[in-house]
């Protein structure tokens, strides 16, 4: 199991449970959508997996490791194994596309420059932006920026990819392209979990769908 939620709840100070008694597991190589209205708890759930927040109760493990036993100083090393794609891309506009994508490799500091350049170009090639590597991300279209974000998330070759509303700001055609891209990563064995409220698009992907409502997991099925 890549992700395992076991009676996980998350309560923020002075409010009702953002997540209540969540139970599910994501298998290696699986792709799943997380859906529900805004405020249903999709982002909270992803934040728990990315160790941005900790569960209030229950047991959550990622790669079989109980996250409650992860010390703060180990958090960065765990995050390196999880690629995250954000709705607003979170690209840095003071550097080129290439440097944005290279950031995870620079951060981990395990590779020499030639190898970093090779991997960055491989990732950019995969998202179809190899010819834009020297550009500033601000000069790219929304769909292109999102693809840079995806290239950055996969450049480290993480076994798990998380995406929080990756198509939130894109038109239907671009959204479809982005989803297809995720599907391709899944086909080569990457586990993928995408939070999205675009039900029509999700339906076309024919994958497992987890539905959240008011912090509870109310539905978990594979769309055929």
């Amino acid at each position, binding site marked *: 199991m890549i992700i395992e939620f076991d009676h996980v709840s998350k309560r923020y100070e002075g409010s009702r449970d953002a997540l209540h008694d969540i139970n599910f597991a994501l298998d*290696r190589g699986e792709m799943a959508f997380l859906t529900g209205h805004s405020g249903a708890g999709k982002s909270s759930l992803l934040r728990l997996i990315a160790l941005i927040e900790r569960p209030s109760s229950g047991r959550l493990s990622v790669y079989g490791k109980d996250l409650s036993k992860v010390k703060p100083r180990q958090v960065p090393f765990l*995050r390196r194994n999880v690629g995250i794609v954000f709705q607003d891309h979170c690209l*840095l506009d*003071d550097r080129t596309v290439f440097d944005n994508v290279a950031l995870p490799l620079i951060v*981990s*500091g*395990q590779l020499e420059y030639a190898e970093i350049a090779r991997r960055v170009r491989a990732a950019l090639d995969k998202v*179809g932006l190899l010819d834009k590597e020297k550009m500033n991300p601000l000069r790219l279209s929304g769909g292109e920026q999102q693809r840079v974000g995806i290239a950055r998330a996969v450049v480290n070759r993480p076994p798990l990819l998380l995406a929080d509303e990756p198509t939130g700001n894109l038109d239907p055609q671009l959204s479809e392209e982005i989803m297809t*891209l995720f599907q*391709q990563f899944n086909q080569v064995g990457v586990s993928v979990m995408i939070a999205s409220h675009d039900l029509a698009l999700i339906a076309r992907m024919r994958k497992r769908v987890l539905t959240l409502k008011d912090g509870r997991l109310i539905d978990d099925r594979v769309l055929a």
Partner: protein
Amino acid sequence: MKRRKPQQRLSHRDHSVSASSPAARSKRAPVGGLRLRLRLYFMRHAQAFFGSLGRLRKAPLASAMTVMVIGIALALPTGLYLLVKNLRGFDAQWQSATQLSVFLQKELPVSRLDKFLDELKQDKDISDFEYRDPTAVLIEFSQLSDIGDSLEVLDDNPLPGIVIVQSAVADTDAMTQLVERLEAKAEVDFVQLDRRWLERLYAIVDIGKRGVIVLACLLGLAVVLVVGNTIRLSIEGRRAEIKITKLIGGTDGFIRRPFLYSGLWYGLFGGVFALILINIALFAIKGPVMALARLYDDGFGLLAVDLSTTAIVVIGAVLLGWGGSWLAVSRHLRDIQPT
């Protein structure tokens, strides 16, 4: 403009993304041994080292202002230190020059004077002496002071004869003994130890020395605060970058590094600027100081920033800059967490 279809590009390149457990990944991680690890370690530091320098250059005016503030703050105590150090050198030179002014009794008969000077000649504690008769003393006195003219109205010379004695001994005990021995003689009115004013100067210099320490502490603190504040602003300006870096697995050390190196650069440039300021200031006051030195038979040494002072200023500035940024980084980086 046709957008390249991403899916077409994936099919033949899919080997570069493969799913595997973290355990399997770690086996695949670079295992180049100690040499590669060392090289990567230096590469990471070089990146932050030169990266932070490049960042200072991106905002030249703001950086220059910080550097100048640091430079001025460091130049003040360093300049005072040099002044005190040179005064002490001056003082040390004069302490060995042990001169006594022996004031004789007034209207001393020539025979007793000769006998007294003979005694001085035989005293092995005295290396040299020079007798100035009352007339010579009067002339010298009227040349040196304003009341010289009023002395002329006096009928007779009120001044005694003086013997300027150069002692052969230098240490304080022997000097005191010599003074006591001379004062015991009937021909002597009193003996003045010329280095007493030097002792007073020494005391003033001592106060100056303490002043340098106090000033250096205060202005050193100012440098720490200036660098700390600059780094704090720079952390604020890079909030988004820090958040993203944390999200993609940047350790605190990685995030801290460029800020610490910025502090180091600020310190280094500030220190160098301080040295430039001091040298300019020394050049400006060189003329009057040399004139003063001539008045004191060149006892006052050449004011100059020596190598050890240069090293202390530069190393101290670097440490203060580093310390200031450490303070800011440890206080503010923790507050920035991804949401």
